[in-house]
């Protein structure tokens, strides 16, 4: 373990690894160590000491922080200014049993976003610029410290979701937004998931500006002390100034959307519920495989009907159906079925998040890439890390 305090030290360590033909992994708070493939590395770069706020201009919606800054420290700074990271980063410390809420660098490296992602965008939409050292051991920067910028390639997008396989980032500039004054949730009950997704489509076709939409089966809803007496519950979050939230809530409830029952959750209970949805709280004690699926929202209902008929799974959907969290048995059978289902849904991915039975060794955690995409990924990797020094194989064998 090599504790890195700045990018200069990172460059030295990477250059040394290049010379010694060694492979390194990177770690922040270690909260996401369970994600990705199991690979043995020659050394570890510990980035947790690269922390702290460099510059924060709330009225410019600009925050520059160091990559190892913990999410709890960051959120405290934002809360003090009445702002937030709009993509609602999840806290997987319980799901992944790490005990650490993670660092901003880790959140970006995994491109993790919560329920607001549906309407506000993902982590990748809020990274404006960064400084980094590539796997070549060379310093470079990209993007800027302003919210509107198209100068040069948008490498920020590439860094988000690359799991540290391209470069070590520091001095991350993010776009922030004001926190909404209030947020409430509306609950609508349905007999089946197809009716639930259709209702969400109708709600999003209304001018009442929902910010988040999830579908819970009754078994999980009851764990959140919600019981509408239906098999599925649609949860709609409304945010904004109180007068607007109340007006939209009463309009939506009056419309009814063919629900068998409906209810309203006030701010505190609403916040708790969305935090559970975001952090996948209901699966923390599941002893099999936990999957994250991203598909077209309308594909959720047929996909879950198909998988549910063949496997013993519990699942719920966020992002209006576009994000499915699924707890099921370990092993390659479910993996094969899920990946075939994603292909049948014409796009998306199924990622194995964790398998507490150790099944992750039998299943590639990331959706396998078609040959042409794999080749391009390899070339992109080589453009940043030609000798495979950084987190080699963490996402895919050979990248």
């Amino acid at each position: 373990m090599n504790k890195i305090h700045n990018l200069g030290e990172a460059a030295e360590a990477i250059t040394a690894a290049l010379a010694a033909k060694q492979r390194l992994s990177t770690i922040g708070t270690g909260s996401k160590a369970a994600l990705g493939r199991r690979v043995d590395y020659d050394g570890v770069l510990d980035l947790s000491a690269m922390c702290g706020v460099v510059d924060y201009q709330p009225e410019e919606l600009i925050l520059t922080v160091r990559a190892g800054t913990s999410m709890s420290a960051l959120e405290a700074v934002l809360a003090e200014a009445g702002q937030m990271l709009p993509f609602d980063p999840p806290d997987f410390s319980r799901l992944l049993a790490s005990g650490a809420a993670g660092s901003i660098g880790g959140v970006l490296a995994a491109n993790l976003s919560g329920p607001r992602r549906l309407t506000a965008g993902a982590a990748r939409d809020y990274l404006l610029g960064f400084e980094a050292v590539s796997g070549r051991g060379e310093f470079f920067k990209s993007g800027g410290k302003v919210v509107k910028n198209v100068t040069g390639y948008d490498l920020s997008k590439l860094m988000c979701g690359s799991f540290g396989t391209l470069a070590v980032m520091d001095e991350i500039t993010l776009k922030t937004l004001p926190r909404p004054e209030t947020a409430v949730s509306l609950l609508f009950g349905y007999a089946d998931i197809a009716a639930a997704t259709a209702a969400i489509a109708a709600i999003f076709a209304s001018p009442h500006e929902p910010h988040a939409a999830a579908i819970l089966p009754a078994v999980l809803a009851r764990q959140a002390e919600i019981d509408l007496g239906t098999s599925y519950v649609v949860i709609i979050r409304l945010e904004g100034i109180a007068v607007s939230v109340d007006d939209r809530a009463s309009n939506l409830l009056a419309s009814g959307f063919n629900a068998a029952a409906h209810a309203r959750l006030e701010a505190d209970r609403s916040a708790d519920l969305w935090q559970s949805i975001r952090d996948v709280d209901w699966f923390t004690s599941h002893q099999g495989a936990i999957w994250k699926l991203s598909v077209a929202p309308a594909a959720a209902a047929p996909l879950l009907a198909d998988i549910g008929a063949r496997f013993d799974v519990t699942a719920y959907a966020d992002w209006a159906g576009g994000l499915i969290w699924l707890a099921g048995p370990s092993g390659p059978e479910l993996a094969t079925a899920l990946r075939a289902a994603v292909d049948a849904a014409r796009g998306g991915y199924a990622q194995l998040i964790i398998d507490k039975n150790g099944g992750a060794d039998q299943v590639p955690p990331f959706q396998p890439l078609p040959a042409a995409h794999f080749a391009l990924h390899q070339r992109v990797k080589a453009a940043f890390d030609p000798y495979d020094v950084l987190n080699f194989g963490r996402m895919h064998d050979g990248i």
Partner: protein
Amino acid sequence: MEMPAPDQSVIDCQAQICADLRRILPDNAVVESEEGRRAYDADGLSAYRQLPLVVALPETVPQLAAVMRYCHSHAIKVVPRGAGTSLSGGALPLADAVLVGLGKFNRILDIDYANRCVVTQPGVTNLAITHAVQADGFYYAPDPSSQIACSVGGNVAENSGGVHCLKYGLTTNNLLGIEIVTIEGEVLRFGGKHLDAGDFDLMGVMTGSEGLLGVVSEVTLRILQKPAMQRALLVGFEDTESAAKAVGDVIGAGIIPAGMEMMDGLAINAAEDFVKAGYPRDAAALLIIELDGPAVEVDALIDRVATIMNAAGASSLKVSNSEAERNLFWAGRKAAFPAVGRISPDYLCMDGTIPRRRLPDMMVRMAALSQKYGLRVANVFHAGDGNLHPLILFDANQPGELQRAEEFGADILRACVEMGGVLTGEHGVGVEKRDLMGIQFTADDLKQQQRLKCAFDDGHLLNPGKVFPQLHRCAELGRLHVHQGKMPFPDIPRF
């Protein structure tokens, strides 16, 4: 502006290349005559003109792929072109390159309300997307001012913005999927109707890559429900500093308007002369602030913003009470460019971004530069996000004025970077700002960007001469010498 030296051996083969392309493409899809090619000799940056070697106008993705394969196998350069509205010369032809026009890709393929997206061919105009879905209450949010003409494929290539991107983001934030054709003629899809890549975000990196990485052949766009109400405020200030501070106060109060535009005195008066929108002629700065959303929310926020404006020292304030009045507020801003065109034979439109708090400093700097170069400058800003559009007034018929105007523009962009900003907020680098890239980026920064280019196009065949001031061979960029024993600080313990 120096472009890569044309390859005479390719130019000499023009007739053969045209004949070969005619075997790949339908009749009339290969433009060989000088008269025909003339229509493609420039984009929206019309100060630069160049006849292309030949213009290819494929109609299908297989045809496009075949053209790319042909060019790649013969090492012929390719310049992609959407509607040709780039303001930075992104679609400027090269004398030895095939110009591939996407104008025939003009069909919307799928309107999918269940997934709230539109799948379209790249040659469809930006505004046509909104037109296709507005009867059902939806719209496509990014609205570059050229939206009546610019194509969505070009929007992807340039990562186009617009007046509403403070709240709704740029093109990159409203894209779900793209299909591209690589220089080798391979067809690849990134994203789709789902959210997030799950792997390297190659869609994200393609967006705004200015036609250097691939040709966009299909686009999946996110559509949004049209806001129930839009209202605007028209606010005058006696000085720019107060106006800039007022913009910060609105955001500081937790309000993100759909748009916040600023105009300076010269722009206000030029616009007022042209469209008579009722702008305060004596104001030094004018803000147009638009709020959208549910009616009760907009009404409440209009009151809050008006209070903030008065507290910030507004000298005049009007609130729109009808769509007609709101449109009138915008009429002057939307006509600002032609309005300036009426008071000057020519103008250059710049596009830097600065941290908004530096706006008063920038106004002082621009006034000094205006004196230095003896040229007037009118300013319109996307004030919410600090994106400047200074319009430098000049007369191309006066010897030396174009060059002076360009130097003035370059100085403004230098000042943007010096104040912590960037060279371009939404128009792209293209050829226009290519040689200024070294102000914002180090040689190593630019080399790293070009290594990414090599992953897509290692022969530099796609749109060369744009974005990067210096072309490096990919083999040279890839070289990395690691000398054991020559490490800096060799005695630091490692692992």
